[in-house]
């Protein structure tokens, strides 16, 4: 009975979301309606709304989301990404496809100081793409590198997706952060490997050249030193602080936001830019937090209807092998990735999928990294690929079409799925570092 109502509400939820209702609103409506139908009490249904609104995010760990977003906004507006890109290019000058690899390396490091991949996609569209275009890289190849490597932002801590996943499954935010490091580096290496192979195989897509991007004069050295050392210090402070147990994630986020503001000011940010960063960080945060509140209403509905057992029963009742269940989850995630944003996907599916994975005997940390990889692959798929649209909106080149970006990021999409399967196959990639936490 309860299970039936939950399934009806899931159907209504999908319908409302497809019709374009704000996802948070759709979640609240379906949860309240479901509780009403199940308990037959309007009062109980409405009080779920009020109670959850007040209680859902009343824990200090939830402060990590606004704080890490703020840190990322300060850093992306400070110009440090530009320094980072030039440092990476200088270091990796000998490699084939050096500008694409510098994009990947820059994104890897940048990911360690920002929590959302959109910021990275926008920044590197403006910084890296024009340089690649200037020296004659094939547009598809250059755009793919920018869009594809921006995905690293969601895997390498601090990442909003990791935080949301940890909160939903009641895992430690710190442990999940640390779990993302090795798979993140692995993914970056896979990306770089692809670029090198592609550039050797077809040198015309990434013409080689010798000179540095910017001559190394005193001004440039100063800028690169501040940007590079600043970001390095921030990474040591935030990720190092969490890993060594000196900071809780909340404390690390607070220090990170302050540190990023200091770097921004040294790099020349002034009052208007600072206000702008703070304003925009709020705009990124509020919809996510509102979703987190309404998603807990939905969790309560799922719990009340015994939905997790019910759906688990459906899954296992198919008599399917574990790998088929995992494959089914992957398909659902990829399809959802074409339609809605990653945070919503996690909020909608993880309360159901995570217990199933646990029942299949998959390590929760490895499953989280696997899931986030698959879900972020959706950021590159048509028609909704969020990163593709971000790159399209940010590149200073009207000749770059959505089709080119989608085509260019396809190899990255496949590599992300490959990395996901590798993590599933070798869970210690995700679990080893958190176990070694001090």
């Amino acid at each position, binding site marked *: 009975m309860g299970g039936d109502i939950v399934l009806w509400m899931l159907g209504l939820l999908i319908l*409302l979301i*497809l*019709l*374009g*209702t*704000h*996802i*948070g*609103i*759709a979640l*609240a*409506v379906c949860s*309240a309606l479901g509780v009403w139908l199940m308990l037959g009490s309007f009062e109980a249904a*409405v*009080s779920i*709304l*009020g*109670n959850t*609104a*007040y209680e859902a*995010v*009343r*824990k*200090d760990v*939830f*402060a990590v989301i606004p*704080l890490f977003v*703020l840190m990322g906004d300060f850093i*992306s*507006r400070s110009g440090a*990404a*530009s320094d980072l890109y030039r440092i990476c290019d200088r270091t990796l000058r000998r490699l084939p496809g050096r500008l694409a690899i510098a994009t990947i390396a820059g994104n890897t490091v940048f990911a360690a100081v920002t929590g959302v991949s*959109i910021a990275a996609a926008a920044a590197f569209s*403006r*910084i890296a793409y024009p340089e690649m275009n200037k020296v004659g890289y094939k547009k598809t190849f250059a755009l793919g590198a920018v869009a594809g490597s921006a995905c690293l932002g969601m895997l390498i801590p601090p990442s909003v997706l990791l935080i949301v996943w940890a909160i939903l499954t009641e895992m430690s935010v710190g442990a999940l952060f640390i779990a993302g490091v090795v798979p993140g580096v692995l993914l970056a290496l896979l990306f770089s490997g692809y670029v090198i192979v592609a550039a050797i195989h077809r040198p015309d897509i990434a013409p080689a050249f010798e000179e540095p991007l910017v001559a190394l004069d005193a001004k440039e050295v100063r800028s690169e030193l501040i940007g590079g050392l600043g970001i390095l210090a921030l990474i040591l402070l935030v990720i190092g602080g969490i890993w060594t147990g000196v*900071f809780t994630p909340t*404390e690390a986020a*607070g*220090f990170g*936001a*302050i540190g990023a*503001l200091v770097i921004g000011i040294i790099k020349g940010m002034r009052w208007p830019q600072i206000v*702008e960063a*703070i304003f*925009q*960080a709020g*705009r990124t*945060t*509020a*919809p*996510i937090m*509102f979703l987190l*509140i309404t998603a807990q209403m939905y969790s309560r509905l799922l719990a009340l209807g015994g939905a997790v057992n019910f759906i688990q029963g459906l899954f296992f009742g198919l008599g399917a092998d574990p790998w088929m269940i995992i494959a089914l989850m992957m398909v659902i995630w990829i399809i959802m990735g074409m*339609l*809605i*944003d990653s*945070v919503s996907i996690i909020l909608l599916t993880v309360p159901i999928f995570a217990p199933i994975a646990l029942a299949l005997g998959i390590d929760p940390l490895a499953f989280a990294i696997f899931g986030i990889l698959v879900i972020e692959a959706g950021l590159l798929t048509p*028609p*909704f690929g969020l990163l593709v649209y971000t790159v399209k909106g*940010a590149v200073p080149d009207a000749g770059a079409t959505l089709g080119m970006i989608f085509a260019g990021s396809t190899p990255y999409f496949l590599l992300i799925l490959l990395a996901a399967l590798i993590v599933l196959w070798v869970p210690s990639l995700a679990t080893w570092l958190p176990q070694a936490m001090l």
Partner: protein
Amino acid sequence: MRATIGFTRVVHLFSAFWTLALAVLIFGDVVGRGVFNQPIPGTKEILQNSVVTITFLQVPLAIYSGSMLRTSIFADAVPPFLRRVLRTVGATLGLVVFLGLIWSTWPAFQDAYRIGEYEGEGSLRVPTWPVRGVVLVMSAFGGWAYLTMIWLDWRGKLIDDVEAPGALSTVGKGAADGR
């Protein structure tokens, strides 16, 4: 209308700066504990209550600026009139949710105020009515935002179908700058 949106922006900016203040608070707390062996009392309680408050203070601008997360996959495929109808249905549901929030928060707020409900132990007692009050007032504001979005929509005033005029005009253009 312009005054409402201006006010929304002020509230949003206020709560956004509040986030920065939390970072300063955490910094002070940790430094105080590490260096002077004296943490700032009540940091945890302030953080908890701030997260709820900040979120609700930012909801109206999220509605006015079209930043609430949604998908436009189906809406993009239908004619403009139908798209407007879909947006109206969505906004009406939003209004209903916030009315439900007001309905259920009002008695809780009254009780909390009347009996002086508080949390925390010892010398540090945080009253709960201010946070409940913010949820209450901002829910009313959120409902109002959805209502006015419907009104603006049918008068053809929305920018790109989702944004109220003025919600982002002075700051906010050219987001996520990489320079």
